[in-house]
């Protein structure tokens, strides 16, 4: 089958992209102004201590060699020490990344489900009030940046109608479950603590929704439009003419070809959720890696910046590979591209 070849090609391409990204990140972090040793040890450090630091960290070696020392460390999971938290960057990442991933995964689930539901509804009841409502909601959702939505939701659920907790990952008084995956919801399930699970789940809802809304609205429109476009295709008339039930035609034979354009778009949106998360994380006091990345940028914490960028890049690439595989799975014309 061509499928394996396709996957291999995509993986090789991903490796090339990651190598390129690591070079760019490394070069930028090294040509930034300022003495690394001073930044690491503070302005009161003695000249001798700085000199030892430079030698220990290979700062006198050629750039190319420095890159290999750095990338070698990265491949072993050693991103260096954060100058702002004074801990290995890897430890910080391990602490903050799962929080953001949990948020982004939840946002992605909301995005996929709601955009399909809204898109299908709008297409099924096109040119009726349902379609009009979905259209107006989509325009609002696309036009409003996520931080505005986030602030409004925070105000609404935190002040006006307090049915869902909105700040942090867990309510006060509850202890975080033992870390296995770093996802509070999953860890709570593993620990068998239903109360913590529901609490963590509820905490996820509002921030994830705020994060997902922009992409969700856009994809709902795309799905609606391609559903309507495909609705008048002969292959659906044919299925109808052979007595296939209307509901099955809609759910299966109309939806599948209509998802293809939306899925590529969803991929890009979900991948960029990582980067967009920092505003939402800041507003909802979510201890995630986006917020960590932002504060390390403000504090010129080079090792942390490099690690965060590299991880974001890696996630972006992985999400895109997954999306490409889904699209290839949906569309035989891509999967069999070379066959004809």
């Amino acid at each position, binding site marked *: 089958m061509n499928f394996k070849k396709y996957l291999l090609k995509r993986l090789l391409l991903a490796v090339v992209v990651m190598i390129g990204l690591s070079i760019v990140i490394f070069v930028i972090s090294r040509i930034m102004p300022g003495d690394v040793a001073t930044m690491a040890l503070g302005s009161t450090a003695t000249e001798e201590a700085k000199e030892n630091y430079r030698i220990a960290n290979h700062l006198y070696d050629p750039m190319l060699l420095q890159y290999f020392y750095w990338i070698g460390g990265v491949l072993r999971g050693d991103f260096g020490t954060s100058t702002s938290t004074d801990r290995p960057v890897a430890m910080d990442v391990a602490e903050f990344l799962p929080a953001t991933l949990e948020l982004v995964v939840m946002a992605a689930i909301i995005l996929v489900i709601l955009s399909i539901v809204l898109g299908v509804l709008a297409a099924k009841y096109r*040119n009726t009030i349902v379609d009009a409502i979905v259209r107006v909601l989509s325009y609002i959702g696309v036009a409003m940046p996520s931080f505005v939505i986030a602030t409004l939701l925070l105000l609404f659920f935190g002040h006006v109608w307090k049915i869902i907790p909105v700040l942090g990952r867990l309510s006060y008084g509850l202890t975080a479950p033992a870390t296995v995956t770093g996802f509070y919801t999953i860890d709570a399930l593993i620990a068998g603590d239903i109360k913590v699970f529901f609490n963590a789940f509820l905490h996820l809802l509002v921030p994830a929704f705020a994060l997902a809304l922009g992409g969700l609205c856009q994809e709902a429109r795309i799905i609606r439009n391609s559903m309507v476009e495909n*609705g*008048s*295709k*002969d*292959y*659906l*008339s*044919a*299925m*109808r*003419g*052979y*007595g*296939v*039930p*209307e509901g099955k035609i809609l759910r299966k*034979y109309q939806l*599948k*070809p209509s998802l*293809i354009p939306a899925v590529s778009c969803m991929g890009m949106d979900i991948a960029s959720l990582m980067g967009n998360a920092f505003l939402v994380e800041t507003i909802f006091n979510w201890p995630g890696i986006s917020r960590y990345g932002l504060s390390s940028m403000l504090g010129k914490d080079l090792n942390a910046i490099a690690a965060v960028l590299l991880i974001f890049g890696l996630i972006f690439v992985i999400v895109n590979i997954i999306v490409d595989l889904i699209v290839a799975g*949906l*569309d*035989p*014309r891509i999967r*069999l591209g070379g*066959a*004809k």
Partner: protein
Amino acid sequence: MSNEKTPILEIKNLKLWFKVYKGYSKVLDGVNITVHQGEKVGIVGEAGCGKTTTVKSILGILPEGQYVIPEGEILYKGEDTLKMNSRQLGKVRSGEISMIYQEPSAALNPVFTIGQQMMEVAKNSDQGKGKTKAERREMVLNAIRDVFIPDPERIFDYYPVQLSGGMKQRICIAMAIMTQRDLMIADEPGTALDVTIQDQVHKTLDRLVEERDMALIMITHSLGVARELTDSINVMYAGTVVEAAPTAELFRKQLHPYTIGLMEAVPRLAGGGIQAGIYGSIPDYLYPPKGCRFAPRCPRATEQCLENKPELVDVGNGHKVACFNIEEV
């Protein structure tokens, strides 16, 4: 049992308007077509004259909510398909009538395999309903074999993109003949194909219709194809049937000026090129002519033609024509 004279399908004065931005596009303007059991009926006419719309309205598969039918009835075995509820219509669709679509690449869903689509059709057909999956698969494979495609097991797992145009058209035919039906509608089954394949497809279709004693409605804009494959011909112009007659009779004598124009537009093997044609084009369906729809292009048009719509009347020998001025020929 089969009585040649029992009508299986009667379309009576069917009017159909599409909703468009500016109002109604009055496409069908009183179509009258009768199909008898086991009869092969051709519908001939230029592009855009409502042939496909007419046959799609039989099964009720025009895009929902985008059209209205102000008048007319479609009697299938005596019952009006336009008045049927979805369950009754479902019965007609799953057991009585099957249709082959004009464009084979558009009639097959690009993201499902041939097998998946045909299995779905089999599952929803009267004959496939009680059967097991394996039996249905056998039905599908037999149908593919019936249209002369070698190696049906391989084709079963193919996607439409992997097939050529002729193969796709044959798959569409296979889908239509997979189960025993009483009426088959073939909407220009050869148009998308080159002539040699077209001929094969027509012959396959003709053989299967004969073998299974089905009635056939064949839409075509080729008079040659109609002459070869049909028992009677309906000539459509701008949403009405202007002339209807047994095939031999129609080729012997044409009465309606439009039919005469059509015949004259056919190039002759004997040479001399196309002798004449029909000037102008079909009318704007948003603002159709008040009287006879052919009047603006007709060499014989009179005051009467511009004011009144001629009825389709029998002039003997089963020859029907809708024209006020046939005597003057």
